């Protein structure tokens, strides 16, 4: 009899513990349903007043997405329904502003999908590291999110509409993915700012206006890059100069080079261009120099010049011009970076550190002084490998016909 009783107690206890585990198995503390979260698609950080910042979030509206995808939904007025909305709050820092924002939203803010962070120009000039601390410390924001600096208020960029993509954030992300300009992720920025050079370049956004018949349309555009030194924005380089930086960093992808052969009228364009770039640091006593070695190849895509590239001697002239064209681009930007901005966004410091660790340690603390004095040598080899589907320039053909 007592044995049976203990058996019953045992069964009862097992039952209790199974019931108890139901509470644990559901993981109820961290239950996050998709309809309980507000998905942030882009974030903008602006300066507001003296010591405050304004944090703006672009939040995805799932309801609108469902409606716009079904044909019967938004067909009424013909107007495209917006898929995102923007809310903003000010605070002493990001975390503070965020907590205020959370109070306004019925759903929990979720950063996991936020792939775009934009700093307003004003706050970038003041310093971004305080905000980076939040982004790197908080477990949700992704290291792969892209970083930007915008001209004027960053919030304004978030409020723009997009025609092709779901939101302006998506537009910017796709723009960067094309790798026409710089591509800087949160991880890259963190790495660059803590690296030897302590300088970084971020894509610089501007709002463009396209005047249409009925109403004008505004859209964001990457317009060169903002140069950041230590953690402050110190200057701006144009899109053309940014290309030069891409050349030096060996990040050039699917890019058209147009140049003018000497004393010949017209231009020649090459696309695609592939390049291999090596930075070779050299130290000769007290003279520090950097050899920029570029090997590049291209295919003719348009020939408006009076040179027939199928003629091999002409080809040499064209290749020479190609070479000079690249050299000009690169020289131009190095000159500006070294003397005007004095920020080593080209990664020279890293190269010197890797090649000459001992000498590097002597100048480590005064790299700012050394960097502008580094002499640049060039070794550029440019070749044209293919001329496309036609040989002689179209111009020639027409002239020949006339004769």
């Amino acid at each position, binding site marked *: 009899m007592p044995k049976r009783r*203990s058996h019953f*107690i*045992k069964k009862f*206890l097992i039952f209790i*513990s199974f019931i108890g585990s139901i509470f644990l198995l559901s993981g109820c503390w961290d239950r996050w349903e998709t309809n309980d979260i507000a998905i942030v698609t882009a974030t903008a950080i602006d300066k507001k007043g003296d010591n405050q910042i304004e944090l703006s979030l672009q939040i995805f509206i799932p309801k609108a997405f469902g409606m716009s995808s079904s044909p019967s939904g938004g067909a009424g007025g013909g107007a495209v329904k917006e898929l995102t909305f923007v809310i903003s709050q000010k605070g002493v820092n990001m975390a503070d502003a965020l907590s205020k924002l959370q109070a306004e939203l019925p759903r929990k803010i979720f950063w996991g999908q936020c792939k775009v962070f934009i700093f307003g120009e004003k706050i970038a000039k003041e310093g971004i590291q305080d905000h980076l601390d939040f982004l790197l410390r908080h477990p949700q924001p992704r290291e792969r999110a892209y970083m930007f600096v915008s001209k004027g208020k960053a919030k304004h960029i978030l409020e723009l509409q997009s025609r092709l993509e779901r939101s302006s954030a998506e537009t910017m992300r796709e723009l960067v993915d094309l790798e026409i300009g710089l591509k800087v992720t949160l991880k890259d920025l963190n790495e660059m700012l803590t690296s030897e050079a302590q300088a970084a370049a971020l894509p610089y956004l501007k709002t463009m206006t396209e005047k249409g018949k009925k109403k004008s349309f505004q859209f964001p555009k990457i317009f060169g890059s903002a140069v950041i030194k230590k953690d402050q924005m110190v200057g701006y380089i144009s899109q053309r100069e940014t290309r030069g930086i891409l050349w030096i960093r060996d990040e050039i992808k699917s890019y058209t080079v147009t140049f003018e052969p000497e004393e010949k009228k017209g231009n020649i364009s090459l696309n695609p261009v592939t390049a291999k770039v090596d930075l070779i640091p050299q130290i000769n006593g007290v003279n520090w120099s950097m050899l920029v070695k570029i090997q590049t190849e291209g295919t003719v895509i348009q020939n408006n010049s009076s040179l027939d590239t199928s003629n091999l001697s002409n080809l040499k002239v064209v290749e020479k011009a190609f070479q000079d064209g690249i050299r000009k681009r690169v020289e131009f930007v190095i000159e500006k970076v070294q003397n005007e901005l004095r920020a080593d966004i080209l990664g020279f410091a890293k190269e010197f550190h890797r090649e000459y660790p001992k000498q590097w340690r002597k100048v480590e603390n005064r790299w700012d002084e050394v960097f502008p004095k580094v002499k640049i040598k060039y070794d550029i080899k440019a070749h044209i490998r293919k001329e496309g589907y036609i040989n002689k320039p179209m111009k020639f053909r027409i002239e020949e016909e006339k004769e």
Partner: protein
Amino acid sequence: MKWGNFLATAFIILIIILLQWPKMKQKPKKEKSAFIVLLLIGLFLSMFDLPYIGGPAKWIEYVFNPFGEILEK
């Protein structure tokens, strides 16, 4: 002293005893007493606010501090 912790531990210990004791009936006395003593140690420790009182980790850190300092240099 945190009563919540103590009571929760006491409850868990009660369950453990109820489940395990029937299996231990045949076992020698030594085993039973070891079982009970270990449970009592657990109950005793649960009476303290453990994260904030100096415990083993503190003692060990104290003992091995000189080595740690060599590393920091």
